[in-house]
């Protein structure tokens, strides 16, 4: 599993998409931090201690699913489509392949976000541990979701399309559910969306629910891959 994870981790960095995403994260995060630095006194008076990381949080909340989709929509079906999966399944178990890939993709975000958060220290003088962990849980949810998508959809081109639609649609539904809970369908859908658990009123529930849902996506992916002819 370690080998699969490491290979997946490395392959995430190999595309130009990864560098563009990292560059965008750095520019937005550092740009917003610099902006907030100009209003240091005012934000401190208002008690907004996490302002320096607000740019990163906002960017990932809106575009995080799109970033994950761009990098992970074909993590499983690409291997099946090119038949490299045949080499893997004759060497390691299918569960190891799926979990290994999830860990590799998650590790990519752990490192990326750590680098971006560390780059903020000159501005904030601190490492935002809580925010960092919350963002990671949020990203893990979408990695799990798009991993699952890449097992359900066997064609990489189709998973790219569906992934992009979901990556744009889910944040819209998520934010809609936060501002308007009169629609029963949206409210119900929101219970399985990470945005709902970012609301202060849910307290620490998100710390439990998001990893549980991520685990559910990974388990469902394992189950699908384990029962399928390749």
């Amino acid at each position, binding site marked *: 599993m370690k080998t699969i994870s490491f290979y997946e981790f490395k*392959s995430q960095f190999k595309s130009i998409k990864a560098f563009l995403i990292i560059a965008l994260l750095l520019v937005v995060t550092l740009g917003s931090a610099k902006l907030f630095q100009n209003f240091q006194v005012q934000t401190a008076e208002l008690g907004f201690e996490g302002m320096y990381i607000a740019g990163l949080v906002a960017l990932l909340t809106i575009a995080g699913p799109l970033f994950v989709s761009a990098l992970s929509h074909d993590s499983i079906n690409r291997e099946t489509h090119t038949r490299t999966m045949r080499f893997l399944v*004759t060497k390691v*178990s299918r569960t190891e392949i799926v979990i290994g890939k999830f860990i590799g993709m998650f590790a990519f975000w752990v490192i990326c976000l750590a680098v971006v958060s560390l780059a903020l220290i000159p501005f904030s003088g601190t490492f935002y541990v809580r925010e960092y962990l919350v963002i990671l849980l949020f990203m893990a949810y979408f990695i799990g979701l798009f991993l699952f998508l890449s097992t359900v959809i066997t064609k990489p081109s189709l998973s790219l399309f569906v992934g992009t639609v979901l990556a744009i649609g889910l944040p819209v539904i998520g934010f809609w559910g936060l501002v308007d809970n009169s629609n029963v369908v949206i409210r119900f859908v929101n219970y399985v969306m990470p945005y709902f658990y970012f609301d202060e009123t849910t307290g620490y529930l998100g710390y439990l629910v998001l990893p549980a849902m991520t685990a559910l996506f990974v388990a469902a992916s394992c189950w699908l891959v384990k029962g399928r002819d390749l």
Partner: protein
Amino acid sequence: MSYAIEVKNVTKEFGAKTVLNQVSMQVKKGSIFGFLGRNGAGKSTLVNIMTGISFVTKGSVHLLGEPLPLSSAVQRKIGVMPDYSMFYEDMTALQHLRYFAKLLKFEQPNAYYMNLLKQVGLEDAAHVKTKKFSFGMKKKLGIAQALVNAPELIFLDEPTSGVDADSILGIHEIIRNLAKKGTTVFLTSHNLDEVEKLCDEVAIMENGVVRSQGTLEELRTRFQPTLEVTMKHAQASKDSKAILTKLIENHGEILDSSPEHFTFTLQDDTMIPVITRAFAQMKIDVYRIEVNEPSLEEIFLDVASSQ
């Protein structure tokens, strides 16, 4: 008897279509087993099932004594070259071998992988990305990666198709060496000549059913129970020829004859000394005796046409 592969009543259905129907076979440890069949006969489906790429609908498969799905420990003793070898385009041949060895927890120094690449004739392409590989080069890398863990059992699905003639000889040498070391080789091939040269035992599959399995000798007896013998001799008189004709006709059927040769069939080779003694008694020199056994191709065509 210890078997490396035991397939029992395996059936594979794709929807309403039955691709494998109650297939059973055993492969002895340390043997080179040839698996033959026309395109669409079900060969690759069975190989895919045995190697964990597909699943059975009914039946069971044991590899090295363990039922499928295999434990990691047994999986690491098996090498597989799938029928269609595709690789990670951004990785070199050497990187592939290193990666696969790592997956199998069989990491070795670089010299080990280079030696494998040398065996398949890819040493010069060790650092070339596989996107630049030709079909034949991919086939060779497919063989090298199947050997990377020094397996006890190896599946080679069409290893020489699309490979140049020189390399084919090298691949045959690798297969022979594997068998010498005690590795069981399961070889799928369309090349009947190759199977005949290399394999200890053969199975012929047709329409999802194993029609025949055994050593080449057993298959020959089963599908052509008579021997075809040609004797070339010194010119014989008409009387001598008549006596010899009668003798041969008592034990077989004469297909062709001239004053200097006989071509006839016999049930088995026990009558050949009797006939040669008759020639000697009549003081007719025998120059040559040719016993023609059916080739694997003839057996294969016989099996296929008998369905």
